């Protein structure tokens, strides 16, 4: 386990379709400045910087950590650049945490971003021949058949996805950083939105966002000096499985189950649904909420949809999921995983504002990527482990 690691500062941009008012460095600085205010630190207090983002082609700059070294105050310091597909925001936070846990640094700044208005994510995510057969369009084209398989396996009511989307879109109204907000959203409005990749409707899909998320992580001594309550890391885990392997179950991937099992073991969790107060889960398409509820062990196999239908995942349910509005409401891809990690920390610090889950003490942050094959997770708590 190594040294204790705490999250002492968190900052996010206002996520939006097109942040034409800021450059990439400007976008990042907006998140970092807020994280520094929260942590009560400045550039000189930071020992190292860990940057994460999804494919460089989204913005058209190869290895952008090089030109961002100046804007991130990294000159003269160690700087790492992580990329693990959609899970990257989560794994970036884990790499930053490992620098504290290994006793190498006292304070590490970690940042993840995407400025998707610079390109078209749908086609950037469509892997072309000769690398793959041209059979799918965008991430939705890849994941829709997996959702179909889940529906066939579990006989889940067809409106489960609609209910997830409605819940997350209502939660998003309570989060000032949300990209998509529909103040008058209703069940019928989600149901009647256009079908994009059957069974995924327009309002059951994540947006393409410009946005960034930053966190200041600190070792024990430094955390105890911070002005606001810290969140403590209770456990971390990562798992990956191959792309081309016929033994994979892409609906309920082994990598996700193994990752959760190791995570709970490290954090001393026996019954995740009872012991965790809330969870921020990577749900880019509505149906992934019930699918991940099973994969993460919150529900028995085949019964994840019941949690959604019974309202267990609502902000006043027994396991609030994505009180922030989730990936469905803001999706700067490279940052989306880190936002999940940051939102789980905000909850246990009691600093989530209007979307605060009352009395949250232990929370899960979850990110996944690739074709449901890369997983990164952490559990954070208000108490030092």
């Amino acid at each position: 386990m190594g040294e204790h690691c705490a999250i002492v500062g968190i900052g996010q941009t206002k996520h939006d379709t097109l942040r034409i008012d800021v450059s990439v460095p400007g976008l990042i600085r907006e998140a970092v400045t807020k994280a520094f205010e929260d942590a009560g630190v400045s550039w000189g207090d930071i020992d190292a910087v860990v940057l994460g983002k999804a494919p460089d082609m989204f913005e058209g700059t190869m290895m952008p950590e090089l030109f961002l070294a100046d804007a991130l105050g990294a000159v003269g310091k160690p700087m790492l650049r992580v990329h693990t597909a959609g899970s990257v925001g989560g794994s970036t936070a884990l790499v930053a945490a490992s620098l504290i846990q290994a006793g190498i640094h006292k304070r590490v700044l970690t940042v993840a971003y995407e400025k998707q208005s610079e390109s078209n994510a749908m086609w950037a995510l469509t892997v072309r021949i000769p690398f793959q057969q041209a059979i799918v369009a965008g991430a939705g084209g890849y994941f829709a058949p997996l959702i179909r398989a889940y529906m066939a396996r579990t006989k889940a009511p067809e409106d489960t996805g609609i209910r997830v989307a409605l819940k997350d879109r209502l939660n998003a109204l309570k989060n000032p950083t949300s990209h998509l907000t529909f103040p008058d959203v209703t069940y019928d409005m989600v149901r009647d939105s256009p079908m994009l990749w059957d069974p995924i409707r327009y309002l059951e899909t994540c947006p393409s966002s410009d946005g960034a998320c930053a966190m200041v992580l600190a070792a024990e001594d430094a955390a105890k000096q911070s002005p606001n309550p810290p969140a403590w890391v209770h456990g971390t885990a990562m798992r990956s499985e191959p792309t081309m392997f016929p033994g994979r179950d892409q609906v309920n991937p082994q990598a996700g189950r193994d990752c959760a099992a190791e995570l709970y073991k490290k954090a001393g969790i026996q019954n995740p649904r009872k012991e965790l107060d809330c969870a921020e889960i990577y749900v880019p398409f509505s149906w992934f909420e019930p699918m991940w509820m099973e994969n993460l062990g919150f529900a028995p196999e085949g019964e994840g949809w019941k949690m959604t239908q019974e309202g267990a995942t609502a902000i006043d349910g027994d396991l609030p999921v994505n009180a922030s509005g989730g990936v469905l409401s803001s999706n700067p891809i490279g940052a989306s995983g880190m936002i999940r990690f940051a939102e789980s920390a905000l909850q246990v610090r009691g600093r989530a504002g209007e979307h605060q889950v009352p009395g949250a003490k232990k929370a899960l942050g979850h990110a996944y990527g690739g074709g449901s094959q890369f997983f990164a997770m952490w559990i954070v708590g208000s108490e030092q482990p």
Partner: protein
Amino acid sequence: MRDVAIVSFAQAKNVRRELDANEVEMVMPVVREAVEQSGIPRREIDFTCSGSCDYLAGQPFSFVSALDAVGAWPPISESHVEMDGAWALYEAWVKIQIGDIDSALIYAFGKASMGDLPDVLTLQLDPYYMAPLSPDSVSLAALQARAYLETSGHSERDLAVIAARSRKDAKTNPAAQLTGDFDPERLLGDPYLVSPLRKHDCPPISDGAAAIVLAAGDLARKVSKRPAWIRGIDHRIEAHGLGNRDLAKSLSTAEAGRRAGVGDGNVDVAELHAPFTHQELILRDALGLANDVRVNPSGGPLAGNPMMVAGLARFGEAARLLMDGQASRAVAHATSGPCLQQNMVAVLEGE
């Protein structure tokens, strides 16, 4: 800090254009060889970390399919940096320091032949102020070479001597791409590519892959007769803008070298990730290497320079000399970015 050592190293032959293998096929034999050499069964290796760059293949997520070369089933604990594999090695070293795990597999691959490398590297520059001017990587290195030659007292002849020595040393390296006996005086008769650099001052464009296995303390001693211990390791980045730093010096290398403890003992040999001849001299100065320190006996990047691999390969080549008993204290160095913007330095010692 926990004792961590390099216990095996494998690399593909560097070639100008690998036509017969895609990236997965390039990585697979190298990973297999490194794992076999390490003596640690693959399923017992605790962590895997890789380095690569999408822009070389010209497609997003090129590392995703490369994972298939590792055989990640049952699922493995794994991560990836969009950097040279040397930084993947650093991430793995950090993970081992936490104390939960004892071993790691690191691999890197780069297939520059899928694009026009000097043009691709232009996209690495600040997209607002520098990339639109489209300076290619050789021209930027030439600016640095000019700045160095004019302040250091070194001559173009000194650079040609480095090129000739590298290609000569590479004759004994089966992975090297560019080898042979060359007379520095004759090399100087060649025209400039971008003044003051001639073709021999520049690295070849290479396709390649490499893999390393790290092991901690007792495990390293158990599986290896002479592990290459990492005694110190550090990396630093500098300002990106070429006008914001002294191109004739490498302050980040000097700082990383100081923190890694390069000056704390006698250095037998150094494997330096200096793709251009003049950069070897800049790095020597920054690390304070004595004149008798042998540099790049493998031939170095001037004999084969697969992007994202060449830095990790320096660690492997330095470790190999220690594992073979040819040296007892070595320096390994990796670089990233235009004109040595980011640098990593490690001190390795034999048993």
